[in-house]
């Protein structure tokens, strides 16, 4: 298939057959297009997993409700969790890393453009495999059947004795394949940041976004590998007669837990560190001040990266480790709070004495700070191993990690989308719709996840498809569900805003926020080659230096 339209960089050709456009997108190795593909793919899965969450909440509105069967409910929470972590959270953050890192370090593309495309399509195949289970998981039996083992898939529930058919295999393959994609992207991010920086951009002059993504990518390399190994062991158990996790033949269920969480906990930081990166770029711009304590921010991130490798078994405080192991994982878990606290204080320090502009991206950043503070504090409670033996596996822990992943990651992603959408599309998102989206989402979020802590304190375990009346859980669950509907409406407004603004939004220009990093020095959307001539930087805020030649940053660093 050949395209006879010759594309000239920067020149819009209006009449192009849609097949050619599709062909260009499918075969692209441009980091910006791959970034957009990642983000679009992740937003699609956000909607899918959101619908799953809504069905879950409808089922839990009343005690003894029978909106869905227990089998369907178990598939819903498994698919919701797996989708949100692997096919929404990671891809959207990889998408932003892909789009922004080369622009911010003054490069024309990622270090390995073809590996980049390969990694994206592997991730896409992973998501496809997971949802293909709806059609193919029971194989010859004819009926579809999504995985129902929970997103952490504890052994021996995944053994063939308890999980016949192929649903667990689709889950395993989906994670295995997308895991290879994640490793490829991580290598690419590391290579780009270490080798592709423009002249003058020393490591200590890199935007924090690049630094934090460097740490994130390093963590992906270390954390995803054990998960990949465990998935292979599980496949060996299921098809080649292995007994790693097969407790009926002397295997160890606890071994799987260790493998899973040695991936699973760093994974939480893999998701949150890029969000810290968004905060560290957006808060300074809307406070009109440089980030407070840049070297400490870098050090704290690296510190989180290391310490978070030693906290995984705080997910296992109830599985019967001895008191020394429980104490060890309690102190490492609490210790992560120190560098995380430093970050929160430094963001506050950035706002302190600034001139804060409450544009929609900044509103989401402030909400992030508030919610992440609470998530961190409930995390300290869960790190206190003895206290955790009451809290974990209950709705309290569900509320805690949704506070982190929705109140933290998703809210930060909203901030990032409102902030960089003008760069990506050339159009501003509507501030009015954005504010409606922000406030509705905030109300829905707090109604849902603030109240969700309480049923957990009152003994409601997670992952139950229904519950007994009269335990003090009924009203709370009803309100939690109502909050979920409000969040869904907010998301609809967000989607509407993205679509309407794409066609009718104000033109963005190069630098709508009066910002300081290199991506704002070029047109919106950027040309395929990014920079006509490779920039040379002398400080952490090259555009500040340009705009304030009388008082450049380079004088103080």
């Amino acid at each position: 298939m050949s395209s006879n339209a010759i594309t000239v960089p920067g020149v819009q050709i209006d009449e192009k057959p849609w097949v050619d456009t599709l062909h260009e997108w499918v075969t692209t190795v441009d980091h910006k297009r791959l970034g957009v593909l990642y983000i679009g793919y992740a937003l699609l899965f956000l909607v899918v997993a959101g619908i799953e969450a809504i069905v879950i909440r409808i089922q839990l509105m009343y005690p003894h409700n029978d909106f869905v069967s227990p089998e369907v409910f178990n598939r819903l929470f498994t698919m919701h969790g797996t989708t949100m972590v692997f096919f929404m959270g990671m891809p959207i953050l990889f998408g932003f890393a892909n789009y922004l890192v080369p622009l911010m370090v003054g490069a024309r593309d990622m270090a390995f453009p073809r590996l980049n495309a390969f990694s994206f399509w592997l991730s896409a195949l992973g998501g496809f495999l997971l949802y293909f289970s709806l059609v193919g998981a029971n194989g010859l039996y004819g009926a579809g059947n999504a995985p129902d083992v929970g997103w952490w898939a504890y052994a021996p529930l995944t053994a063939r004795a308890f999980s016949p058919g192929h649903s667990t295999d689709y889950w395993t393959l989906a994670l295995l394949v997308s895991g290879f994609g994640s490793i490829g992207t991580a290598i690419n991010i590391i290579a780009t940041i270490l080798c592709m920086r423009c002249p003058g951009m020393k490591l200590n002059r890199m935007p924090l976004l690049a630094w934090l993504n460097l740490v994130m990518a390093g963590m992906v390399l270390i954390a995803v590998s054990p998960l990949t190994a465990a998935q292979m062991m599980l496949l060996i158990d299921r098809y080649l007669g292995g007994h790693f996790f097969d407790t009926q033949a002397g295997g160890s269920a606890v071994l799987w837990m260790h493998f899973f969480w040695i991936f699973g906990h760093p994974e939480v930081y893999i998701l949150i560190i890029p969000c810290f990166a968004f905060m560290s770029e957006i808060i300074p711009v809307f406070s009109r001040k440089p980030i407070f304590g840049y070297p400490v921010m870098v050090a704290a991130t690296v510190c989180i990266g290391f310490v978070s490798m030693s906290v995984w078994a705080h997910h296992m405080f109830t599985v019967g480790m001895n008191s020394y192991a429980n104490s060890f994982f309690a102190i490492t878990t609490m210790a992560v709070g120190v560098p995380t606290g430093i970050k929160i204080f430094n963001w506050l320090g950035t706002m302190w004495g600034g001139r804060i502009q409450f544009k929609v991206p900044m509103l989401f950043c402030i909400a992030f700070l508030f919610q992440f503070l609470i998530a961190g504090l409930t995390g300290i409670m869960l790190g206190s191993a003895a206290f955790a033996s009451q809290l974990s596996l209950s709705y309290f822990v569900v509320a805690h990690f949704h506070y982190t992943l929705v109140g933290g990651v998703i809210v930060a992603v909203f901030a990032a989308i409102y902030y960089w959408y003008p760069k990506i599309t050339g159009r501003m998102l509507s501030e009015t719709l954005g504010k409606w989206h922000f406030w509705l989402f905030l109300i829905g979020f707090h109604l849902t996840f603030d109240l969700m802590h309480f049923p957990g304190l009152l003994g409601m375990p997670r992952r139950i498809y229904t519950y007994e009346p009269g335990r003090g859980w009924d009203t709370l669950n009803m309100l939690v569900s109502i909050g979920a509907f409000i969040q869904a409406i907010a998301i609809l407004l967000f989607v509407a805003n993205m679509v309407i603004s794409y066609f009718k939004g104000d033109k963005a220009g190069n630098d709508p926020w009066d910002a300081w990093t290199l991506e704002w020095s070029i047109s919106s959307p950027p040309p395929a080659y990014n920079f006509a001539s490779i920039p040379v930087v002398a400080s952490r805020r090259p555009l500040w230096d340009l705009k304030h030649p009388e008082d450049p940053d380079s004088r103080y660093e």
Partner: protein
Amino acid sequence: MQMQCAKHANRMSILQMVLVVFGSAAAAAAAEPIAPSTGLPNIFAPESTPARSIFGLSLFVLAITGIIFIVVFTLLVYSVVKFRSTAANADREPAQVYGSTQIELAWTIIPILIVVVLFLATARVIHAVQDAPQPPNAIEVTAIGHQYWWEFRYPKLGIVTANELHIPVSDPDHPTPTFLKLLSADTDHSFWIPQLAGKTDLVPNHPNSMWMDPYRTGIFLGQCAQYCGVQHAKMLLRVSVDGREDFADWVRSQQQPAVQDASVAAGRRVFESTACINCHAVAGTNANGRFGPDLTHLMSRATIASGAAPNTPEKLRLWIQDPNKIKPGSLMPAMQLSDADLDAVVSYMETLR
């Protein structure tokens, strides 16, 4: 830790009030009335030493995290209000401040100190709960998790029962704690009675233990906390804490073989000639299956199907006819008995006191 609890009792009642406000409307509308002595699950209403130690720790942790929250939240609100963009300052950039070593040191060192304090408080409770020695007069129970029910064995007393654990109340002066050995027959489960102790998982090939010494008699509710399969939700758990004499009576009655009642011989014949006995045991008869709950003293239990239904003749009949009507996904098959056989078996079951 005990003294600390007493000191915090007043503060606790505020939190409990909040919880009660949330829960009361629901409790009032509850379909089934709950006996006053029934302990609704609540981690802030401890009735046993492990739960009470954790409760004391939880108040300490809540207090410290509460203070941190107030401090940081105040700083955040202050910054947002005080440093907002106004018409007066709109045309010039604020002072560009890059950092401050002293301030950054302060907010590094203070959190480290807080972490050390929290860790020491936590480690103390971990040790007190997990490493408590088992006294010689302790009641020993082996709890075995099954998809989706609980088996309880009292090895020293020769009792096998299911789903409703009976333990004696423990007098603080002469404690008679109950020590549980936790096993699993299939997948992971978790034993959780919030008022009595934190949860501990039942993991196959990985024996665990836990203990409790309830301060008062009554029924304490909980349920399986670790996802174990289709009917994880209806793997409910009841602990009946009995007075000393009540417990002794219960033990004596459970040690008896099953009642042999000639008037229900037809039902017994159906029971023993169908697949029922592949899974169920009735002591003193040739029914000795081990996959399902022991039925020797079925009528001494208040619920069937691991708490999913009250133990009434109607529910029992429905359960035997088709367990999926009560608990879809239960591993007990519908036995396809004729109405006459069904009635006979139910009559037989009702004699198993």
